[in-house]
């Protein structure tokens, strides 16, 4: 089969690989029909995640058709069209039993801090991902869900991670009616976080980024006020001014390890890899939220320590909430929101690349060329 393959930092290509096989009785093999590149994949692509091995296939956002099932699979049949949460989870450990599907203890021998994720290095379990023609799906009875007839494939693929994470990020904010919510980052995650903040009753939503096409999307798709941090010497001061010197009730950090906006942090965090990523946005969140407020972090960081302003977080009495998204838990409610048009994931799709052009897709998304917000990968067109 054809598959995206990592060749080292900043280098990926398509290679011929063996079709994955059933390795456990509850496995399924999926023929991928549509995949996407996530902002998280950029952290791998830039070499920020320890134990990313040469030859690894990335991709944790994908949908497809069940091609083969293991002997103990009861809920899926060959031919089913399914969407697969980016978390691999067993459904039965202490954590899964309490709904923490992203923190499963039975699927990642390489680390206890993080659960299993498709195509996301050996630090999350060493599973090849779905930017390929076929992918192995462990615990087929737990993760995958049949795609409802009414759902558009492009919504389905975004619901496997980016959209679910935006919705989850707004929930972590514990938004109360009338709250002023600031969303840092107008990528796919931030845009859905902004839409979701309204659903939870926000009175004001301000989205911060510096890419014009994304800020424009925040205005049109999420009805948000926008702030271009390039236009301000110090964006936190601007946020304070705009909130009558209180700060925001809730800040949602949807940027993560690649953050720009502070050269020293960016260079030590993402270029020299002396930190687990650049925590610029996280520090802006801590600074920009009001005392006693909540910072919701869905932006991802590596396992190496970061230069975070923890003292300020303590002095301000903040609530810090964060996690990898337990995706499947978001779905029933999110399906309603998508069906009603309250959440519009596929409005963010700007680019569709055949799998053979995956190297270009990564470069375009990473360098944010051509107004790219969300690139999809089409394995069938190979």
């Amino acid at each position, binding site marked *: 089969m054809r598959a995206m393959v990592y060749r080292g930092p900043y280098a990926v290509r398509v290679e011929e690989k063996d079709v994955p096989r059933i390795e456990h009785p509850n496995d399924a093999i999926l023929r991928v029909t549509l995949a996407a590149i996530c902002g998280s994949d950029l952290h791998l692509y830039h070499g920020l995640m320890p134990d990313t091995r040469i*030859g690894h296939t990335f991709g944790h956002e994908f949908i497809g058709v069940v091609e083969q099932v293991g002997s103990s699979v009861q809920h899926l049949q060959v031919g089913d069209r399914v969407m697969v949460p980016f978390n691999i989870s067993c459904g*039965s450990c202490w954590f899964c039993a309490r709904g923490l599907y992203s923190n499963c203890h039975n699927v990642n*021998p390489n*680390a*206890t801090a993080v659960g299993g994720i498709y195509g996301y290095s*050996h630090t999350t379990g060493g599973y090849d991902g779905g930017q390929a023609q076929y992918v192995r799906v462990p615990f087929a009875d737990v993760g995958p869900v049949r795609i409802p007839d009414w759902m558009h494939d492009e919504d389905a693929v975004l619901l496997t991670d980016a959209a679910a994470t935006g919705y989850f990020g707004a929930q972590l904010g514990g938004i109360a009616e009338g709250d002023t919510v600031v969303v840092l980052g107008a990528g796919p995650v931030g845009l859905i976080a902004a839409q979701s903040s*309204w659903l939870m009753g926000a009175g004001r939503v301000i989205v911060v980024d510096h890419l014009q096409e994304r800020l424009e999307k925040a205005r049109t798709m999420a009805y948000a006020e926008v702030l271009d941090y390039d236009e301000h010497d110090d964006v936190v001061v601007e946020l304070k001014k705009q909130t009558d010197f209180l700060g925001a009730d809730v800040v949602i950090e949807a940027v993560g390890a690649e953050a720009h906006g502070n050269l020293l942090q960016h260079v030590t965090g993402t270029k020299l890899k002396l930190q687990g990523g650049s925590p610029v946005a996280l520090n802006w969140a801590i600074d920009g939220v009001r005392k006693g407020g909540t910072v919701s972090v869905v932006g991802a960081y590596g396992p190496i320590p970061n230069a975070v302003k923890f003292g300020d977080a303590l002095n301000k009495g903040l609530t810090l909430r964060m996690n990898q998204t337990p995706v499947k838990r978001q779905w029933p409610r999110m399906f309603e*929101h998508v069906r009603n*048009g309250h959440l519009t994931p596929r409005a963010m799709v700007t680019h569709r690349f055949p799998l053979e052009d995956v190297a270009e897709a990564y470069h375009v998304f990473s360098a*944010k060329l051509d107004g790219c917000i969300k690139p999809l990968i089409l394995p069938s067109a190979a």
Partner: protein
Amino acid sequence: MTDPDIPSAYVRDKRTPPPTREELRARIPGWGADLDPADRPSYPKLQYPADTGAHWDFPERQPGGEGRERSIEHAFVTPVFGTAQPLRGLSGGVRRFAYRRFSEGRLAHWLLLIVGDRIDAWGSHLRSFASRRPDVPASGLRSELTHGGLRSRRGRSDARHQVLDPVVVAGPWVAGAAVTYTGVRRLVRVLRR
């Protein structure tokens, strides 16, 4: 009445009230649909799902786990695990040591894994030079032409950071080439003597 010039942070209750529910509902599709925390799927955080789909207490163990690297914070190799890119060669040795010796809480664990990554990458690059598909320092650059490399970056502050990319990306390749060149030259001299 307080002085209107004093911002709300400095007095008890002076925040500009948000727009009314009616105004918000009229402007924003779905406003307030999840106003009640009980409608939010991740509230409360710990919540027993009715049915996770699992029909086992503890999953059957996937074969082949013996000797597989694992975090020493785990009691054993988990019943299910990835089998992509098993450890091999020098990078495999370094990675295995990182897993066996240091917990996830130790910086050495991660730094050794990063060393393993660099050895893996350079070993693979060298091997690729003897293949029909030699590695390149950065892939996908054709899109700079097809997807408006210059146009897309105009006026962006991160363009300044991106100037560093060629240095970060190509730097190790240039250094590698220089080391190889001087090394080979020395070797040739030694052999000539």
